[in-house]
């Protein structure tokens, strides 16, 4: 069927801010879909609240609305734009839920907006438990038997019907707290009765346990003519029991015979046909490792994280084609965009194996609960391609950037036997490292299988790796062993460690013997048809397929997996840099390893190498291509960290000179430079030992800000108030040494500002200044940023402009840079300079209209700012107020303290724009799903040092009709200040205590501030967790609550008695 001509304008809903479970994959999917619809001549209206995406660039859709994805705002946009249709399946669960809401509220009917792609009934059938069960019964597809019980007797009755093992999940507790596996009546009785107690609804779900089954996924597509295909199937390394987003995954499936594969393929196609989905769909299945029994676990009637992975794993662009299908085209009418010689009605076949490993945030949340289960915890993922399992696995491991290039961590080597066993049996994020360690210690794969139910094939792959380690260790500088190790994915660095030599020497030996990787093409058809896809991966094989084009080319290093501190913003900058390179007539080459993002869409660059971002892997590409140079300033710390070694190897780095990068990154050089430029910074020094640290702190005075040098996203950064805390920080959090010095700075309380600038060596363009709502001390990535500044005096702004210009020129920055300032007692101090693109690039690019990463790229390639039409200095301000607000994923991470401090904790961001600050803030709060009440009750638990400051806020809340609750000390204080406050008992006191009133919903807002002493197990921690787990808005900074209050106040009418 040709594409539909009865619809002209289509609305696409994005997925909003990045949170755990919904990350950059939807930027990729949404961008593809919008471009695909535009390509077919439709007018595209996009709604997404996330400014850090390529999707929300104005080139991607005809109309881009960066507005909250809420019923209120999307309805307004529908009323204004009157789209003919709505495509809801490309914006993750957020997009799908919003479409459901709009359909159910009648808005779609009222404005005659047609839902494309998936029918409402199909969404219901896939999402609603009972309807899903009914559908599966109709299709004769097995699902694990389950029932909902309110008493222990009901649970026992169910067990008599279907037997053991069973899983009990208490309803409405976070992450299934209190649930568990039952193998017999005793366990069932105990766990159910406990679960019923914990559940606020006295309800438990009892389900047949299929833990230990193989978890297999199918990515399927269907069109309106009922053509249905399987794009890819995948097998989880981790058996059922761990969320697939938290599982190591291989594509295609590895341990299935054709009979098993076809059985599950049939099931998946039957389901997508029954749901009549027009587009993509994901089916998750559990297969008994000992029989043909299987169960359908879940169906996602939309494009998902797995479909992004499947697209990158096969080259087959699911989202792009899903958009075309949604407007009526059928798969046999669309050309396969990979081969261009075949049609889209094609099931890709691979001639490589793909490994995906999730990236978890536990390097930042050391105290977070790391056990993996049904709640996803990873923030991002890496993918690697190889010609064998070991190669794909090891390439993925070194893409993770965990400070290792191999399946070995210091902790694993040092782990006690007991810890090792526990880490293996109760899976945490680092299990694969412990499995390898266990094999090194002589465990057999059978023993490990008994402990984990991980398939023997996967365990054997790990054992093989361990065997090669031994072979290497016993055969130093042996070429045969070296070749073997390279074929199976060992890095030069790992080999060097096993040979007690340097990476450089291994590399030299390798090159002398012409042992270099070749590059193979990802073509969706295993070379059966000729393809021209510029999409390659490295492997040690015979024939190289990637040839330099002869055109001058520039390599852009991507930013790797999404993690806290290095999010989708850096992918945004990478993509823009690529565009600028192409505009100047060069060939743009990208290396990256993140399957979720736009930068790893092979149609973005002239050539994509899907490979790890390590010195070795980058150098291999450099050796092959005739590069004019490498750009490192857009790939976050990942790329910057490679600059030095690349430079030493003689690779031209385009942009700020390597020695000059050090001017900003090296503490002493930086301090000297600032002195020379006569720009003030908070006092500070570098400590290489505990005693040195104590001495420095005494000289400069407490409070001090401490952090390891070369940090990413404020990792392990803290504000310390006294010597005892300093000492415990130095001993526990960082292990200071001459190689790893610790920075100690005076902590200045004051307003924080942030500036991005572009410098061409002569002129300095400052697109804008952002003012933070929260005072210095809260990480800039966790602060609400306002553009243009609302409270800065002209004098301060002049000073910031002056300092920025002098810093850019003085530190000899070329291209992008980011500076953070604190304004303390009307003086401007520099806190930090980053000689690279920062996370505010997309936000500022959007609000100023300056495509900053493009301008910067052109600058470093020789086009001056003046050539590009920009003047030196601060660019004119936007007439509107724009707010960038952080979004957190705390509800998904148990035991993580939600208190905001110098360590970054947010996973994503939203933007709110309007004529006034209050309105812009309101939108930002709405967009981040923080439902602010206009009346109700508020709880205060305030630390002594901020009690005074809290009086005004409490008063104003009381003034607009809020009832005040407070814990004892705070209540006493506020009462003295003349306020009516209800006192709540502290934790562990009899009667209703502070946790109860949060849990029971008595209060709708919680304000909790913390003393600067470290106290994770304190009452405050429990209050904060309780709030997060029950979805009660929580504020840990008085600045934030003050902003919130202003918004609420602005929506109030004056109520004054005569």
């Amino acid at each position: 069927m040709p594409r539909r001509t009865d619809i002209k304008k289509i609305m696409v809903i994005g997925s909003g801010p990045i949170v755990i479970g919904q990350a950059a994959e939807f930027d990729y999917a949404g961008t593809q879909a919008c471009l695909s619809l535009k390509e077919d001549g439709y007018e595209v209206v996009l709604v997404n609240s996330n400014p850090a995406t390529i999707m929300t660039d104005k080139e991607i859709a005809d109309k881009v609305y960066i507005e909250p994805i809420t019923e209120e705002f999307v309805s307004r946009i529908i009323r204004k734009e009157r789209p003919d249709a709505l495509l809801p399946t490309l914006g993750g669960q957020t997009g799908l839920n919003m479409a459901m809401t709009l359909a159910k509220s009648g808005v779609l009917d009222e404005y005659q907006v047609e839902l494309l792609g998936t029918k409402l009934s199909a969404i219901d059938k896939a999402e609603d438990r009972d309807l899903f069960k009914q559908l599966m019964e109709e299709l004769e597809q097995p699902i694990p038997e389950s029932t909902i019980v309110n008493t222990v007797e009901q649970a026992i009755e169910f067990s008599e019907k279907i037997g053991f093992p069973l899983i009990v999940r208490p309803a409405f507790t976070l992450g299934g707290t209190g649930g568990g596996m039952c193998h017999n009546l005793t366990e069932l009785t105990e766990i159910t009765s406990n679960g019923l107690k914990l559940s606020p609804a006295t309800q438990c779900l009892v389900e047949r346990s299929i833990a230990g089954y193989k978890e297999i996924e199918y990515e399927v597509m269907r069109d309106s003519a009922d053509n249905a295909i399987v794009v890819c199937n995948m097998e989880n390394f981790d058996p059922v029991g761990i969320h697939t987003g938290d599982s190591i995954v291989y594509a295609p499936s590895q341990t299935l015979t054709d009979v098993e594969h076809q059985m599950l393929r049939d099931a998946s196609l039957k389901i997508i046909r029954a749901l009549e989905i027009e587009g993509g769909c994901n089916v998750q299945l559990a297969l008994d490792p000992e029989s043909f029994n299987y169960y359908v676990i879940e169906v996602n009637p939309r494009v998902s994280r797995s479909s992004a992975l499947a697209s990158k794993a096969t080259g087959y662009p699911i989202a792009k084609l899903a958009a075309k299908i949604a407007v009526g085209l059928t798969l046999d009418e669309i050309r396969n965009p990979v081969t261009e010689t075949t049609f889209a009605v094609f099931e890709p076949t691979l001639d490589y194996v793909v490994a995906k490993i999730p990236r978890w945030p536990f390097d930042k949340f050391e105290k977070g609960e790391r056990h993996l289960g049904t709640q996803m915890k990873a923030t991002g993922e890496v993918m690697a391609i190889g010609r064998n399992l070991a190669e794909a696995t090891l390439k993925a491991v070194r893409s993770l950037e965990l400070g290792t290039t191999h399946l070995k961590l210091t902790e694993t080597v040092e782990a006690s036997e007991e810890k090792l066993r526990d880490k293996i049996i109760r899976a945490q994020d680092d299990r694969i490292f412990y499995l390898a360690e266990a094999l090194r210690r002589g465990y057999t794969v059978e023993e490990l299988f008994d402990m984990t139910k991980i398939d023997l094939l996967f365990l054997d792959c790990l054992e093989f790796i361990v065997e090669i380690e031994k072979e290497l260790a016993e055969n130093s500088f042996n070429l045969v062993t070296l070749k073997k190790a390279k074929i199976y994915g060992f890095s030069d660095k790992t080999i060097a460690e096993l040979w007690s030599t340097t990476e450089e020497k291994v590399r030299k030996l390798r090159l002398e013997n012409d042992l270099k990787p070749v590059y193979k093409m990802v073509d969706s058809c295993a070379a059966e048809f000729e393809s021209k896809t510029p999409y390659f991966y490295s492997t040690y094989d015979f024939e190289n397929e990637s040839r330099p084009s002869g055109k001058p080319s520039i390599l852009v290093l991507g930013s790797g997996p999404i993690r806290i501190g290095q999010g989708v913003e850096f992918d945004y900058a990478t993509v823009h840099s690529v565009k600028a390179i192409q505009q100047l007539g060069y060939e743009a080459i990208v290396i990256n390893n993140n399957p979720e993002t736009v930068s790893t869409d092979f149609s973005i660059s002239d050539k994509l190498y899907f490979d790890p971002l390590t010195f070795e892997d980058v150098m291999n590409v450099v050796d092959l291509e005739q590069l004019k140079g490498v750009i490192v300033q857009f790939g976050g710390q990942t790329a910057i960290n490679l600059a030095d070694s690349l430079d030493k190897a003689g690779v031209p780095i385009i942009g700020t000179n390597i020695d000059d990068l050090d001017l900003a990154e090296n503490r002493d050089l930086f301090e000297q430079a600032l002195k020379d430029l006569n720009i003030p910074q908070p006092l500070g020094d570098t400590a290489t030992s505990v005693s040195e640290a104590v001495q420095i702190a005494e000289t400069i005075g407490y409070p001090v800000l401490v952090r390891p040098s070369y940090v990413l996203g404020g990792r392990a950064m803290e504000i310390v108030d006294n010597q005892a805390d300093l000492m415990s920080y130095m001993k526990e959090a960082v292990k200071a040494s001459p190689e790893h010095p610790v920075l100690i700075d005076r902590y200045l309380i004051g307003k924080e500002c942030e500036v991005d600038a572009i410098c061409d060596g002569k002129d300095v363009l400052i697109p804008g200044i952002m003012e933070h709502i929260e005072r210095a001390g809260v990480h800039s990535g966790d602060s609400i940023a306002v553009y243009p500044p609302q409270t800065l005096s002209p004098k301060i702004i002049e000073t910031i402009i002056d300092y920025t210009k002098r810093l850019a020129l003085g530190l000899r920055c070329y291209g992008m840079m980011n500076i953070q300032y604190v304004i303390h007692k009307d003086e401007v101090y520099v806190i930090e300079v980053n000689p690279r693109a920062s996370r505010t690039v997309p936000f500022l690019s959007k609000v100023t209209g300056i495509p900053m990463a493009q301008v910067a790229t052109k600058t470093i390639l020789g086009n001056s700012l003046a050539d590009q039409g920009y003047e030196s200095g601060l660019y004119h301000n936007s007439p509107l107020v724009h707010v960038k607000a952080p979004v957190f994923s705390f509800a998904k991470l148990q035991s993580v303290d939600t208190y905001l401090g110098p360590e970054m904790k947010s996973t994503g961001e939203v933007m709110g724009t309007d004529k006034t600050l209050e309105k812009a803030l309101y939108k930002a709060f709405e967009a981040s799903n923080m439902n602010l009440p206009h009346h109700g009750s508020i709880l205060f638990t305030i630390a002594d040092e901020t009690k005074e400051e809290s009086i005004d806020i409490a008063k104003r809340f009381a003034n607009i009709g809020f009832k005040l609750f407070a814990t004892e000390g705070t209540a006493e204080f506020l009462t003295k200040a003349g306020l009516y406050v209800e006192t709540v008992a502290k934790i562990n006191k009899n009667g209703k205590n502070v946790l109860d009133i949060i849990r029971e919903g008595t209060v709708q807002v919680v304000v909790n501030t913390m003393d600067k002493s470290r106290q994770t197990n304190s009452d405050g921690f429990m209050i904060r967790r309780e709030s997060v787990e029950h979805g009660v808005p929580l504020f840990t900074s008085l600045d934030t609550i003050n902003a919130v209050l202003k918004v609420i106040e602005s929506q109030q009418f004056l109520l004054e008695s005569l």
Partner: protein
Amino acid sequence: MKRLLLLEDGTVFEGEGFGSSNVSTGELVFTTGMTGYQEEISDPSFNGQIIVFTYPLIGNTGINRDDFESIEPSCHGVVVRELARRPSNWRSSVSLDEYLKQKDIPGIKGIDTRMLTKKIREKGTLKACIINGETDPAHALDQLKATVMSSKLVAEVSTTKPYPNPGLGKNVVVVDFGLKHSVLRELSRYQCQVTVVPYNTSAEDILNLAPDGVLLSNGPGNPENVPEALPLIQGIQGKVPLFGICLGHQLFALANGATAYKLPFGHRGSNHPVRDLETKTIDFTSQNHSYAISAQSLENTDLVVTHLEINDGSIEGLKHKTDPAFSVQFHPDAAPGPHDGQHVIGKFIKLMDTWKETSDAKKNRY
């Protein structure tokens, strides 16, 4: 053990041997399925061929007792990138290595199979041999060039005596040109009473079995090398329902005056999209053939095209204008491969039903 894969164009690939240590010569073909190596290796259609697997990890699920397509595999070699060290699947009884040793078939691993595939794609199917690492390639190349490939591929794999596969339903005669077990498996779903006969059985002998229908099986090689089949088909066509699969399809076409040509590198794999021209539906099919029927040659025949391959437009199905006879180029019996085309077997069963009804009606009239 070092072994070499030598191609008739002189290219030498060095790899490591597994399976049998025999020297073996054959026609080099690639197959793109990611699962199903056990079925493919034991598929008689691969008789005389050295199979290159484009998927690099072969042997992961071992070999089980159930999934064979013949008792004695007849392919001449197996080429893989990576052989699984330790197979893992609940049904696995031996490893692929061990199985190939048992069946005396050589394998070679560590080969850049993608490069090899591209070579076959560009140069067409090639003769090749798997030889010991110490052999002088120049000498072996001369021998290879001089080797004439067998033209008796069907005779080599067909049964020499008829045998029954009893059932309680329709009486079906299957002519064995290199029969895969899956064809029988599919017929058994319909409780057919099957008699498998050798490829050179006469039409008369078949008609004497009073079949409700005749199935012309798949098989190896060039249809023109099986001239015996043409009078057989011509002798039964129109008298009983006829259904051809793969080589059976090509022989059916030849018997009706069409001609076959050699595809540049054949269709082998599990992902070939085929359009049914009547229903407009698309099925993903399992395929394994080097030859195809020429569309032009159909002009003066009574055959009608029913199915086409989506990507290269080659003929995938035919039917006779008046006689109860049809055929498909792909494998509706799958194994390995998707089950999308299975309904074609049902069509054959239905054809037998309607034919019986009409002929019974005719009988009653006289």
